[in-house]
């Protein structure tokens, strides 16, 4: 009991504590540097400014899960971009590690790189919460942490992402436009959703359904879960066609090659389809556009890692940066497809086509990434 009392007194002192002097970025007013590339998320986005550091810098990428095409392509992109002439001279040391879906391991890796004196750490967070400690340490040591893709629920770090809600809206807007062009303002649409419980799936679906609601048309909606995976999506779309018959359009947000394959297998008439930026989807769209597959392909690009690296370097150079950077959506409609430019008939189906961001001067083409052999970069 006495020890408990002692412990309680010790703990009650906690109210008086927290006198930690924190460094870290200064909150300033915008606009930031290079706004075409580093666009602030919204009008209320804060701007950060770190003290300028002498280059060249030491940069680390701490990935979580590895083992799907997107992540592997992301890692290859990071390595290729680190060798890009435009930033090669600014990087002294570059390291990539993957920790798996293990929060302590990812936090540990970030902390280790802070201890080793790295200047910037790029990461795809395994969880949107839980980074308070490493953010505190990074601020103390003037290290720039840049989460991208799976971002954190905090406004204390600079983050890079694409606007998933806008992406959902763009999917539906294009599909409705194509349907209107053939005189349909109501009908039956199939929504193919992504991984349940994920914020990306949630936001894209909200965007899609908002546009359907706003259109005023009477849309009968059938929703299936495809997990952003070609195999799963192909199966659930085939099932949906078997049960519900013909659809007027498909609003998919991933696994799109499988979606279109299911339509072809069922000899379903070609209809407008929205989807991710898989090479396979674009191949099928290019081949079947004249039969009615008037789709749109917008993707979450593995190239976000390159923009995050660029943003980190820009922050280290002392430029004013938005706290949340919105990367322009890389989109291509059926009439814009061109072999060798925004899709590659000689590359595999699961390759992600969107890698180039001209406003950011990030121009690593698909074949360049895929030819990046393991032995090339040390």
């Amino acid at each position, binding site marked *: 009991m006495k020890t*408990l009392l002692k*412990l*309680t007194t*010790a*703990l*009650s*002192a*906690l109210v*008086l*504590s*927290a006198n*930690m002097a924190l460094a870290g970025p200064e909150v300033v007013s915008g606009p930031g540097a290079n706004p075409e590339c580093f666009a602030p998320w919204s009008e209320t986005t804060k701007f950060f400014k770190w003290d300028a550091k002498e280059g060249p810098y030491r940069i*680390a*990428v701490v*990935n979580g*899960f*590895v083992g799907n095409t997107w992540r*592997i392509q992301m*890692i290859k992109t990071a*390595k290729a971009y680190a060798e890009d002439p435009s930033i090669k001279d600014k990087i002294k040391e570059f*390291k*990539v*590690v*993957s*920790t*798996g*879906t*293990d*929060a*302590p*391991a990812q*936090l*540990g*890796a970030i*902390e*280790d*790189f802070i*201890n*080793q*004196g790295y200047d910037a750490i790029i990461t795809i967070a*395994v*969880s*949107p*919460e*839980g*980074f*308070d*400690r490493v953010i*505190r340490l990074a601020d103390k040591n003037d290290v720039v942490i840049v989460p991208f893709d799976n971002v954190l*629920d905090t406004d204390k770090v600079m983050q890079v992402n694409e606007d998933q809600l806008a992406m959902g809206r763009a999917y539906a807007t294009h599909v409705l436009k194509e349907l209107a062009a053939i005189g349909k303002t109501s009908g039956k649409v199939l929504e193919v959703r992504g991984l349940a*419980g994920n914020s990306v799936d949630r936001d894209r679906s909200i965007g899609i359904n908002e546009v359907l609601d706003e259109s005023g048309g009477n849309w009968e909606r059938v929703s299936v879960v495809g997990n952003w995976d070609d195999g799963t999506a192909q199966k659930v779309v085939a099932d949906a066609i078997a049960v519900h018959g013909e659809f007027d359009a498909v609003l998919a947000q991933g696994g799109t090659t499988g979606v279109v394959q299911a339509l072809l297998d069922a000899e379903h008439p070609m209809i407008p389809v929205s989807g991710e930026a898989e090479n396979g989807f674009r191949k099928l769209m290019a081949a079947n556009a004249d039969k009615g597959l008037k789709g749109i392909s917008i993707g979450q690009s593995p190239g976000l890692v390159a923009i995050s690296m660029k943003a980190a370097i820009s922050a280290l150079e002392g430029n004013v940066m938005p706290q949340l950077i919105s990367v322009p959506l890389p989109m291509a409609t059926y009439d814009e497809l061109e072999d060798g430019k925004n899709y590659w008939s000689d590359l595999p189906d699961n390759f992600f086509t969107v890698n180039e961001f001209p406003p950011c001067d990030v121009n690593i083409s698909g074949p360049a990434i895929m030819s990046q052999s*393991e032995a090339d*970069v*040390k």
Partner: protein
Amino acid sequence: MQMVSLKRGVSQNMGFATAVLLLLVLYLTYNMMHPRGFSSAVAIQNSNETVAIAFVAMAQTLPVLLGGLDLSVGAVMTLTNCVASLLLNGSPAQILLGMGLTLLTGTMFGLMNGLIVVYGRIQPIIATLATGAIAMGLALLIRPQPGGNVDDDLGWALTNSVWDLADTYGFADGGDAWWLRPFADIPVPFLLVLFVAIFVWLPFRRSVTGRTVYAIGSAEGAAYMSGLPINRAKIAAFTLGGFFAACGGLYLAIQTSSGNADIQQAGAYTLNSIAAVVLGGTSLLGGTGGAIGSLIGAMILRVISFYFRILDIDPLLQPLIEGLVLLTAVSFGAFRTLRVKNQLDLFR
């Protein structure tokens, strides 16, 4: 005389001794290669990263000593992590109560596992596969989305050195008292694990119940015929396993200031805990080994991955290399097969 007993101690705990040696070599080399090796910051980072897996490995040890496997340890860690993320805030008394309730949740879950295994007469591996899914379901119910609001100062104080702990809570002259100096640079998480190992595991191991756990693993029939409390020992083993897993979950919540019902993470922890147990010299057949060994095993597991951050290894080759190193490390334990006089010994 002492030399002899030391020698016998080592030869009787070959697996454990190899694990300690391996850890020493790996960890000293790591520190020598690290730009800030042998510093408090590095030790703090390393121990923070290791705590959760160390506790989960200790949790796994008990069912393994019985000759079974517990597939729910990762899920129980996740469940208690989510419980803690709800309860660890408010006044100091509320926080302490929250910690107690978190540990109680895991302990009760372990008790349930034990009761199912003993009175349901279901193999531990199947029983815990099911209860693990239940724990995961409860965790998702409590925390459908990652989040939580664990007290900031608590998180900072317990994930740093003793000096920071004293500084945050303002005792021992803010950490500058002379009597605190010798301990000031020791990471708090390391002390927490040590505390639980010494004050929970060691007394249990020495008790009749604890020794019965070993006896069951060696030869359940003989243990039964000797009149040992079989059922009590099995239930106690699973309950203690639940408590250790809850320690892991509690620490994870403090470390990340949040809870996350991450199914993949729970699975990874369960599998890694088995690897850590084996690395620490505990036999999957049961009867030999111990939680301290698993603690060492968990550390080895972590140190292997530390190397990827100081060496230049292609990121896509890292899982392959990690697997090879792990396989080599586990194989050290198999060396005893080269020295057996009678092959029947292997079937013990």
